[in-house]
Protein backbone atom coordinates (compact mmCIF):
# COMPACT_ATOMS: atom_id res chain seq x y z
CA UNK A 1 0.00 0.00 0.00
CA UNK A 2 1.20 3.49 -0.84
CA UNK A 3 0.01 6.43 1.20
CA UNK A 4 0.60 10.11 0.62
CA UNK A 5 -0.17 12.20 3.68
CA UNK A 6 -0.38 15.97 3.22
CA UNK A 7 2.57 15.97 0.87
CA UNK A 8 3.83 19.34 -0.36
CA UNK A 9 6.76 20.43 -2.45
CA UNK A 10 7.89 23.77 -3.80
CA UNK A 11 10.41 24.42 -6.56
CA UNK A 12 12.22 27.70 -6.96
CA UNK A 13 10.95 29.36 -10.10
CA UNK A 14 11.71 32.67 -11.78
CA UNK A 15 9.18 34.61 -9.70
CA UNK A 16 9.86 32.96 -6.35
CA UNK A 17 8.87 29.47 -5.20
CA UNK A 18 6.30 27.59 -7.26
CA UNK A 19 4.13 24.98 -5.61
CA UNK A 20 4.61 21.69 -7.43
CA UNK A 21 2.46 19.77 -4.99
CA UNK A 22 0.10 21.19 -2.45
CA UNK A 23 -1.17 19.11 0.48
CA UNK A 24 -1.76 15.93 -1.47
CA UNK A 25 -3.22 12.93 0.34
CA UNK A 26 -4.17 9.68 -1.34
CA UNK A 27 -3.88 5.93 -0.97
CA UNK A 28 -2.99 3.34 -3.60
CA UNK A 29 -3.88 -0.27 -2.75
CA UNK A 30 -1.74 -3.33 -3.42
CA UNK A 31 -2.12 -4.85 -6.88
CA UNK A 32 -3.96 -1.79 -8.08
CA UNK A 33 -3.51 -0.30 -11.55
CA UNK A 34 -3.49 3.33 -10.60
CA UNK A 35 -3.30 6.29 -12.96
CA UNK A 36 -2.30 9.88 -12.32
CA UNK A 37 -3.40 12.25 -15.04
CA UNK A 38 -3.09 15.98 -15.60
CA UNK A 39 -1.61 18.62 -17.84
CA UNK A 40 2.11 19.35 -17.99
CA UNK A 41 3.27 20.99 -14.80
CA UNK A 42 0.37 19.65 -12.72
CA UNK A 43 2.84 17.88 -10.44
CA UNK A 44 2.11 14.30 -11.42
CA UNK A 45 5.70 13.27 -12.17
CA UNK A 46 6.85 14.77 -8.88
CA UNK A 47 4.20 12.76 -7.08
CA UNK A 48 5.43 9.57 -8.73
CA UNK A 49 9.06 10.32 -7.89
CA UNK A 50 8.25 10.59 -4.19
CA UNK A 51 7.42 6.88 -4.16
CA UNK A 52 11.00 5.82 -4.97
CA UNK A 53 12.61 8.93 -3.52
CA UNK A 54 13.97 10.39 -6.75
CA UNK A 55 12.45 13.52 -5.20
CA UNK A 56 11.61 14.19 -1.62
CA UNK A 57 8.74 16.26 -0.25
CA UNK A 58 9.20 19.48 1.75
CA UNK A 59 6.51 18.38 4.17
CA UNK A 60 4.15 15.47 4.73
CA UNK A 61 5.03 11.83 4.42
CA UNK A 62 5.07 9.13 1.78
CA UNK A 63 4.53 5.66 3.21
CA UNK A 64 5.11 2.50 1.21
CA UNK A 65 4.32 -0.76 3.02
CA UNK A 66 4.70 0.87 6.45
CA UNK A 67 8.03 2.46 5.54
CA UNK A 68 8.16 6.23 5.52
CA UNK A 69 10.16 6.76 2.36
CA UNK A 70 11.30 10.29 3.11
CA UNK A 71 12.83 9.21 6.42
CA UNK A 72 14.83 6.19 5.30
CA UNK A 73 18.61 6.03 5.73
CA UNK A 74 20.67 5.91 2.55
CA UNK A 75 21.15 2.18 2.81
CA UNK A 76 17.52 1.43 3.61
CA UNK A 77 16.55 3.70 0.75
CA UNK A 78 18.60 1.70 -1.75
CA UNK A 79 16.95 -1.44 -0.42
CA UNK A 80 13.57 0.20 -0.96
CA UNK A 81 14.48 1.32 -4.49
CA UNK A 82 15.77 -2.14 -5.32
CA UNK A 83 12.24 -3.50 -4.97
CA UNK A 84 10.65 -0.96 -7.30
CA UNK A 85 10.76 -1.04 -11.09
CA UNK A 86 10.57 2.16 -13.09
CA UNK A 87 9.81 2.91 -16.71
CA UNK A 88 10.74 6.31 -18.16
CA UNK A 89 9.42 8.51 -20.93
CA UNK A 90 12.82 8.67 -22.64
CA UNK A 91 13.50 4.96 -21.96
CA UNK A 92 16.90 5.78 -20.40
CA UNK A 93 18.66 2.75 -21.81
CA UNK A 94 22.45 2.55 -21.87
CA UNK A 95 23.30 3.05 -25.50
CA UNK A 96 26.63 1.24 -25.19
CA UNK A 97 25.03 -1.94 -23.87
CA UNK A 98 23.07 -4.53 -25.80
CA UNK A 99 19.40 -5.25 -25.17
CA UNK A 100 20.44 -8.26 -23.12
CA UNK A 101 22.92 -6.30 -21.00
CA UNK A 102 20.47 -3.45 -20.47
CA UNK A 103 17.80 -5.85 -19.32
CA UNK A 104 20.16 -7.56 -16.88
CA UNK A 105 21.37 -4.28 -15.29
CA UNK A 106 19.36 -4.51 -12.04
CA UNK A 107 20.76 -8.01 -11.44
CA UNK A 108 24.27 -6.56 -11.70
CA UNK A 109 23.55 -4.11 -8.91
CA UNK A 110 21.82 -6.28 -6.33
CA UNK A 111 21.15 -9.86 -5.38
CA UNK A 112 17.51 -10.73 -5.96
CA UNK A 113 15.73 -13.74 -4.47
CA UNK A 114 13.65 -14.82 -7.44
CA UNK A 115 14.53 -12.79 -10.49
CA UNK A 116 13.37 -13.71 -13.96
CA UNK A 117 16.01 -14.72 -16.45
CA UNK A 118 16.95 -12.37 -19.26
CA UNK A 119 15.55 -14.86 -21.79
CA UNK A 120 12.25 -15.16 -19.95
CA UNK A 121 11.70 -11.45 -19.65
CA UNK A 122 12.74 -10.68 -23.25
CA UNK A 123 10.41 -13.43 -24.41
CA UNK A 124 7.67 -11.81 -22.33
CA UNK A 125 8.06 -8.41 -24.01
CA UNK A 126 8.58 -10.03 -27.40
CA UNK A 127 12.19 -9.08 -28.03
CA UNK A 128 13.96 -12.44 -27.94
CA UNK A 129 15.34 -11.88 -31.41
CA UNK A 130 16.84 -8.48 -30.52
CA UNK A 131 18.94 -9.73 -27.63
CA UNK A 132 22.32 -8.76 -29.08
CA UNK A 133 21.31 -5.48 -30.66
CA UNK A 134 22.11 -2.04 -29.34
CA UNK A 135 19.36 0.49 -28.51
CA UNK A 136 20.32 2.64 -31.53
CA UNK A 137 19.17 -0.24 -33.75
CA UNK A 138 15.68 -0.37 -32.18
CA UNK A 139 12.47 1.55 -32.79
CA UNK A 140 10.91 3.68 -30.03
CA UNK A 141 8.41 0.99 -29.09
CA UNK A 142 11.13 -1.65 -28.93
CA UNK A 143 13.28 0.58 -26.74
CA UNK A 144 10.41 1.04 -24.34
CA UNK A 145 9.86 -2.72 -24.24
CA UNK A 146 13.49 -3.10 -23.23
CA UNK A 147 12.80 -0.47 -20.53
CA UNK A 148 9.87 -2.57 -19.33
CA UNK A 149 11.88 -5.80 -19.46
CA UNK A 150 14.58 -4.14 -17.34
CA UNK A 151 11.95 -3.06 -14.82
CA UNK A 152 10.32 -6.51 -14.71
CA UNK A 153 13.40 -8.69 -14.42
CA UNK A 154 13.61 -8.32 -10.65
CA UNK A 155 9.88 -9.14 -10.23
CA UNK A 156 9.13 -5.86 -8.48
CA UNK A 157 6.16 -5.51 -6.13
CA UNK A 158 5.67 -2.06 -7.53
CA UNK A 159 6.09 -0.68 -11.05
CA UNK A 160 6.25 3.06 -11.63
CA UNK A 161 5.66 4.37 -15.14
CA UNK A 162 6.49 7.98 -15.93
CA UNK A 163 4.82 8.98 -19.22
CA UNK A 164 5.79 5.61 -20.70
CA UNK A 165 4.09 6.24 -24.04
CA UNK A 166 4.52 9.98 -24.49
CA UNK A 167 7.50 9.66 -26.80
CA UNK A 168 5.68 7.13 -28.99
CA UNK A 169 3.10 7.23 -31.77
CA UNK A 170 -0.41 5.94 -31.18
CA UNK A 171 -0.08 2.39 -32.45
CA UNK A 172 3.11 1.90 -30.51
CA UNK A 173 1.38 3.34 -27.47
CA UNK A 174 -1.21 0.58 -27.69
CA UNK A 175 1.54 -1.99 -28.01
CA UNK A 176 3.12 -0.71 -24.80
CA UNK A 177 -0.23 -0.54 -23.01
CA UNK A 178 -0.78 -4.19 -23.91
CA UNK A 179 2.61 -5.20 -22.54
CA UNK A 180 1.91 -3.39 -19.27
CA UNK A 181 -1.53 -4.96 -19.01
CA UNK A 182 -0.06 -8.40 -19.61
CA UNK A 183 2.63 -7.75 -17.00
CA UNK A 184 -0.04 -6.91 -14.47
CA UNK A 185 -2.00 -10.08 -15.24
CA UNK A 186 1.10 -12.23 -15.05
CA UNK A 187 2.89 -10.77 -12.04
CA UNK A 188 0.13 -8.89 -10.22
CA UNK A 189 2.30 -6.02 -9.00
CA UNK A 190 0.97 -2.59 -8.14
CA UNK A 191 1.35 -0.28 -11.12
CA UNK A 192 1.31 3.50 -10.83
CA UNK A 193 1.26 5.23 -14.17
CA UNK A 194 1.61 8.94 -14.79
CA UNK A 195 0.50 10.27 -18.16
CA UNK A 196 -1.34 13.08 -19.88
CA UNK A 197 -2.84 10.63 -22.37
CA UNK A 198 -6.43 9.84 -21.40
CA UNK A 199 -6.57 6.81 -23.66
CA UNK A 200 -3.77 5.10 -21.78
CA UNK A 201 -5.55 5.49 -18.43
CA UNK A 202 -8.85 4.39 -19.94
CA UNK A 203 -7.29 1.20 -21.32
CA UNK A 204 -5.18 0.32 -18.36
CA UNK A 205 -6.26 1.69 -15.00
CA UNK A 206 -8.80 0.78 -12.33
CA UNK A 207 -8.67 4.12 -10.67
CA UNK A 208 -7.11 7.49 -11.42
CA UNK A 209 -6.32 10.78 -9.75
CA UNK A 210 -6.80 13.91 -11.79
CA UNK A 211 -4.31 16.61 -10.89
CA UNK A 212 -4.37 20.33 -11.44
CA UNK A 213 -1.84 22.88 -10.17
CA UNK A 214 -0.31 20.53 -7.63
CA UNK A 215 -3.60 19.31 -6.22
CA UNK A 216 -5.64 16.16 -6.70
CA UNK A 217 -8.92 17.59 -7.90
CA UNK A 218 -10.77 14.35 -8.64
CA UNK A 219 -10.48 10.66 -7.94
CA UNK A 220 -12.28 8.48 -10.47
CA UNK A 221 -13.12 4.81 -10.89
CA UNK A 222 -12.19 4.18 -14.50
CA UNK A 223 -14.85 2.55 -16.65
CA UNK A 224 -12.90 0.39 -19.06
CA UNK A 225 -14.13 0.39 -22.60
CA UNK A 226 -15.92 -2.95 -22.97
CA UNK A 227 -15.66 -3.30 -26.73
CA UNK A 228 -12.34 -4.49 -27.98
CA UNK A 229 -10.60 -1.48 -29.42
CA UNK A 230 -10.01 -1.56 -33.06
CA UNK A 231 -6.42 -1.00 -33.97
CA UNK A 232 -6.05 0.66 -37.31
CA UNK A 233 -2.79 1.11 -39.09
CA UNK A 234 -1.25 4.57 -38.81
CA UNK A 235 -1.93 5.36 -42.45
CA UNK A 236 -5.67 4.69 -42.10
CA UNK A 237 -5.90 6.72 -38.95
CA UNK A 238 -4.03 9.61 -40.55
CA UNK A 239 -6.40 9.53 -43.51
CA UNK A 240 -9.39 9.48 -41.17
CA UNK A 241 -8.25 12.45 -39.13
CA UNK A 242 -6.86 14.54 -41.95
CA UNK A 243 -9.48 14.03 -44.65
CA UNK A 244 -12.66 14.45 -42.54
CA UNK A 245 -13.83 17.76 -41.12
Amino acid at each position, binding site marked *: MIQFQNVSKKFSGLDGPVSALDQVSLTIEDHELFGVIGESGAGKSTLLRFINALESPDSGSVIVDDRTVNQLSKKALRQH*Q*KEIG*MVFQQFNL*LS*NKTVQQNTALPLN*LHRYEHPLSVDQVLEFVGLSDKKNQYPAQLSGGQKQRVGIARALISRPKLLLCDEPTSALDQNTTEEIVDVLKKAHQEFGMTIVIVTHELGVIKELCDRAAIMENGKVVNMVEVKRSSTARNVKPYRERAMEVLSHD
Partner: protein
Amino acid sequence: MTDFLSTYLERVSEFAPRMIESLGETGIMLSFAMIAAILLGLPVGTLLFLTTPGRPMSNRIFNSMLNIIVNIIRSFPFLLLVVAMQPVIRQIYGRATGDSVAASFPMIVIAIALYARFVEQSLLGVPKGIIETAQSMGATTWQLIWKFMYVEARSSLVIGFTTAVISFVSYSTIMGVVGGGGIGDFAIRYGYQRYETDIMYTAIILIIILVEIFQRLGLKLAKSIDKR
Protein backbone atom coordinates in the same frame (compact mmCIF):
# COMPACT_ATOMS: atom_id res chain seq x y z
CA MET B 1 69.12 15.43 -56.16
CA THR B 2 70.78 12.12 -55.34
CA ASP B 3 73.65 14.11 -53.92
CA PHE B 4 71.36 16.05 -51.66
CA LEU B 5 69.58 12.90 -50.58
CA SER B 6 72.75 11.03 -49.75
CA THR B 7 74.21 13.91 -47.72
CA TYR B 8 70.92 14.26 -45.90
CA LEU B 9 70.74 10.55 -45.08
CA GLU B 10 74.32 10.67 -43.94
CA ARG B 11 73.56 13.53 -41.60
CA VAL B 12 70.43 11.87 -40.28
CA SER B 13 72.31 8.68 -39.53
CA GLU B 14 74.95 10.76 -37.82
CA PHE B 15 72.31 12.31 -35.57
CA ALA B 16 70.16 9.20 -35.30
CA PRO B 17 71.52 7.85 -32.01
CA ARG B 18 70.93 11.19 -30.29
CA MET B 19 67.50 11.47 -31.88
CA ILE B 20 66.47 8.03 -30.72
CA GLU B 21 67.67 8.83 -27.22
CA SER B 22 65.54 12.01 -27.31
CA LEU B 23 62.51 10.04 -28.39
CA GLY B 24 63.11 7.76 -25.41
CA GLU B 25 63.13 10.78 -23.09
CA THR B 26 59.90 12.03 -24.62
CA GLY B 27 58.52 8.54 -24.07
CA ILE B 28 59.37 8.66 -20.35
CA MET B 29 57.71 12.05 -19.87
CA LEU B 30 54.63 11.04 -21.86
CA SER B 31 54.28 7.75 -19.99
CA PHE B 32 54.34 9.47 -16.61
CA ALA B 33 51.78 12.01 -17.83
CA MET B 34 49.49 9.37 -19.33
CA ILE B 35 49.57 7.16 -16.26
CA ALA B 36 48.87 10.16 -14.01
CA ALA B 37 46.00 11.26 -16.24
CA ILE B 38 44.33 7.86 -15.93
CA LEU B 39 45.11 7.05 -12.30
CA LEU B 40 44.51 10.54 -10.89
CA GLY B 41 42.97 12.75 -13.58
CA LEU B 42 40.05 10.36 -14.04
CA PRO B 43 39.07 10.27 -10.34
CA VAL B 44 39.62 14.03 -9.91
CA GLY B 45 37.41 14.76 -12.93
CA THR B 46 34.79 12.35 -11.62
CA LEU B 47 34.85 14.11 -8.24
CA LEU B 48 34.49 17.48 -9.97
CA PHE B 49 31.36 16.10 -11.57
CA LEU B 50 29.91 14.30 -8.55
CA THR B 51 30.43 17.04 -5.97
CA THR B 52 28.71 19.78 -7.99
CA PRO B 53 25.61 20.91 -6.06
CA GLY B 54 22.58 18.87 -7.09
CA ARG B 55 24.63 15.77 -7.94
CA PRO B 56 24.98 12.56 -5.94
CA MET B 57 27.95 13.67 -3.78
CA SER B 58 27.01 17.35 -3.72
CA ASN B 59 29.53 19.33 -1.63
CA ARG B 60 29.81 23.00 -2.47
CA ILE B 61 33.02 23.77 -0.54
CA PHE B 62 34.97 20.73 -1.73
CA ASN B 63 33.80 21.34 -5.28
CA SER B 64 34.86 24.99 -5.37
CA MET B 65 38.24 24.16 -3.85
CA LEU B 66 38.88 21.44 -6.41
CA ASN B 67 37.78 23.76 -9.20
CA ILE B 68 40.09 26.52 -8.04
CA ILE B 69 43.09 24.19 -7.81
CA VAL B 70 42.47 22.79 -11.29
CA ASN B 71 42.03 26.29 -12.70
CA ILE B 72 45.21 27.60 -11.07
CA ILE B 73 47.28 24.77 -12.51
CA ARG B 74 45.77 25.20 -15.93
CA SER B 75 46.21 28.97 -16.01
CA PHE B 76 49.92 28.87 -15.08
CA PRO B 77 52.11 29.50 -18.12
CA PHE B 78 53.59 26.01 -18.28
CA LEU B 79 57.20 27.17 -18.27
CA LEU B 80 56.58 29.03 -15.01
CA LEU B 81 54.84 26.00 -13.51
CA VAL B 82 58.00 24.04 -14.25
CA VAL B 83 60.11 26.68 -12.52
CA ALA B 84 57.72 27.08 -9.61
CA MET B 85 57.78 23.35 -8.95
CA GLN B 86 61.56 23.10 -8.71
CA PRO B 87 61.79 23.19 -4.89
CA VAL B 88 59.05 20.57 -4.53
CA ILE B 89 60.69 18.25 -7.04
CA ARG B 90 64.03 18.64 -5.27
CA GLN B 91 62.37 17.65 -1.98
CA ILE B 92 60.72 14.56 -3.43
CA TYR B 93 63.19 13.32 -6.02
CA GLY B 94 66.49 14.71 -4.77
CA ARG B 95 67.19 16.71 -7.90
CA ALA B 96 65.03 19.00 -9.96
CA THR B 97 66.95 19.18 -13.22
CA GLY B 98 68.97 17.08 -15.56
CA ASP B 99 66.85 14.04 -16.31
CA SER B 100 63.48 13.13 -17.77
CA VAL B 101 62.14 11.73 -14.52
CA ALA B 102 62.64 15.04 -12.72
CA ALA B 103 61.05 16.75 -15.73
CA SER B 104 58.05 14.44 -15.49
CA PHE B 105 56.79 15.99 -12.24
CA PRO B 106 55.33 19.13 -13.86
CA MET B 107 54.01 16.92 -16.66
CA ILE B 108 52.16 14.82 -14.08
CA VAL B 109 50.61 17.88 -12.46
CA ILE B 110 49.38 19.41 -15.70
CA ALA B 111 48.21 15.99 -16.93
CA ILE B 112 45.96 15.51 -13.91
CA ALA B 113 44.45 18.98 -14.13
CA LEU B 114 43.95 18.86 -17.89
CA TYR B 115 42.44 15.39 -18.09
CA ALA B 116 40.25 16.02 -15.04
CA ARG B 117 38.51 18.77 -16.99
CA PHE B 118 38.05 16.54 -20.02
CA VAL B 119 36.59 13.83 -17.80
CA GLU B 120 34.18 16.28 -16.21
CA GLN B 121 33.04 17.40 -19.66
CA SER B 122 32.58 13.84 -20.84
CA LEU B 123 30.42 13.02 -17.83
CA LEU B 124 28.38 16.17 -18.39
CA GLY B 125 27.62 14.82 -21.85
CA VAL B 126 25.80 11.77 -20.46
CA PRO B 127 22.00 12.33 -20.50
CA LYS B 128 20.63 13.31 -17.09
CA GLY B 129 18.08 10.50 -17.22
CA ILE B 130 20.90 7.98 -16.79
CA ILE B 131 21.73 9.21 -13.28
CA GLU B 132 18.07 9.13 -12.39
CA THR B 133 17.75 5.61 -13.75
CA ALA B 134 20.70 4.41 -11.68
CA GLN B 135 19.18 5.99 -8.58
CA SER B 136 15.79 4.46 -9.28
CA MET B 137 17.48 1.05 -9.25
CA GLY B 138 19.09 1.78 -5.90
CA ALA B 139 22.63 1.93 -7.31
CA THR B 140 25.44 3.14 -5.05
CA THR B 141 27.53 6.08 -6.22
CA TRP B 142 30.31 3.63 -7.09
CA GLN B 143 27.92 1.58 -9.24
CA LEU B 144 26.55 4.76 -10.80
CA ILE B 145 30.05 5.71 -11.93
CA TRP B 146 31.32 2.34 -13.10
CA LYS B 147 28.18 0.69 -14.43
CA PHE B 148 26.42 3.73 -15.88
CA MET B 149 28.50 6.91 -16.33
CA TYR B 150 31.77 5.44 -17.59
CA VAL B 151 29.88 3.04 -19.85
CA GLU B 152 27.97 5.85 -21.52
CA ALA B 153 30.89 8.31 -21.57
CA ARG B 154 33.57 5.86 -22.67
CA SER B 155 34.16 7.01 -26.23
CA SER B 156 34.17 10.64 -25.14
CA LEU B 157 36.65 9.74 -22.37
CA VAL B 158 38.94 8.19 -24.98
CA ILE B 159 38.70 11.22 -27.29
CA GLY B 160 39.45 13.53 -24.33
CA PHE B 161 42.43 11.38 -23.44
CA THR B 162 43.71 11.57 -27.02
CA THR B 163 43.47 15.35 -27.03
CA ALA B 164 45.18 15.47 -23.63
CA VAL B 165 48.07 13.25 -24.78
CA ILE B 166 48.66 15.49 -27.78
CA SER B 167 48.88 18.46 -25.41
CA PHE B 168 51.35 16.44 -23.32
CA VAL B 169 53.55 16.06 -26.42
CA SER B 170 53.52 19.81 -26.81
CA TYR B 171 54.23 20.42 -23.10
CA SER B 172 57.11 17.93 -23.20
CA THR B 173 58.91 19.89 -25.91
CA ILE B 174 59.87 22.69 -23.53
CA MET B 175 61.29 20.45 -20.80
CA GLY B 176 64.77 21.13 -22.16
CA VAL B 177 64.89 24.20 -19.93
CA VAL B 178 65.37 21.96 -16.91
CA GLY B 179 67.47 19.42 -18.75
CA GLY B 180 64.63 17.01 -19.28
CA GLY B 181 65.57 16.35 -22.88
CA GLY B 182 63.09 14.94 -25.34
CA ILE B 183 62.61 15.26 -29.08
CA GLY B 184 61.45 18.89 -28.81
CA ASP B 185 64.57 19.83 -26.91
CA PHE B 186 66.61 18.01 -29.53
CA ALA B 187 65.00 20.08 -32.31
CA ILE B 188 65.76 23.30 -30.46
CA ARG B 189 69.32 22.51 -29.41
CA TYR B 190 70.70 20.73 -32.46
CA GLY B 191 68.47 22.14 -35.15
CA TYR B 192 67.67 25.69 -34.13
CA GLN B 193 70.57 26.80 -31.98
CA ARG B 194 73.25 25.11 -34.10
CA TYR B 195 71.65 26.05 -37.42
CA GLU B 196 71.23 22.42 -38.49
CA THR B 197 67.95 23.28 -40.22
CA ASP B 198 67.53 19.90 -41.90
CA ILE B 199 67.89 18.14 -38.57
CA MET B 200 65.43 20.55 -36.95
CA TYR B 201 62.79 19.77 -39.57
CA THR B 202 63.46 16.08 -39.30
CA ALA B 203 62.77 16.27 -35.57
CA ILE B 204 59.62 18.33 -36.15
CA ILE B 205 58.37 15.78 -38.67
CA LEU B 206 58.94 13.05 -36.08
CA ILE B 207 56.80 15.02 -33.63
CA ILE B 208 54.08 15.44 -36.25
CA ILE B 209 54.13 11.71 -36.95
CA LEU B 210 53.89 11.02 -33.22
CA VAL B 211 50.84 13.30 -32.87
CA GLU B 212 49.26 11.79 -35.96
CA ILE B 213 49.65 8.28 -34.55
CA PHE B 214 48.05 9.23 -31.23
CA GLN B 215 45.18 11.01 -32.96
CA ARG B 216 44.39 8.13 -35.28
CA LEU B 217 44.66 5.45 -32.64
CA GLY B 218 42.48 7.47 -30.29
CA LEU B 219 39.74 8.12 -32.81
CA LYS B 220 39.77 4.55 -34.01
CA LEU B 221 39.41 3.20 -30.49
CA ALA B 222 36.71 5.77 -29.62
CA LYS B 223 34.73 4.83 -32.70
CA SER B 224 34.96 1.12 -32.11
CA ILE B 225 33.53 1.37 -28.58
CA ASP B 226 30.77 3.84 -29.46
CA LYS B 227 27.41 2.13 -29.99
CA ARG B 228 25.26 5.23 -29.71
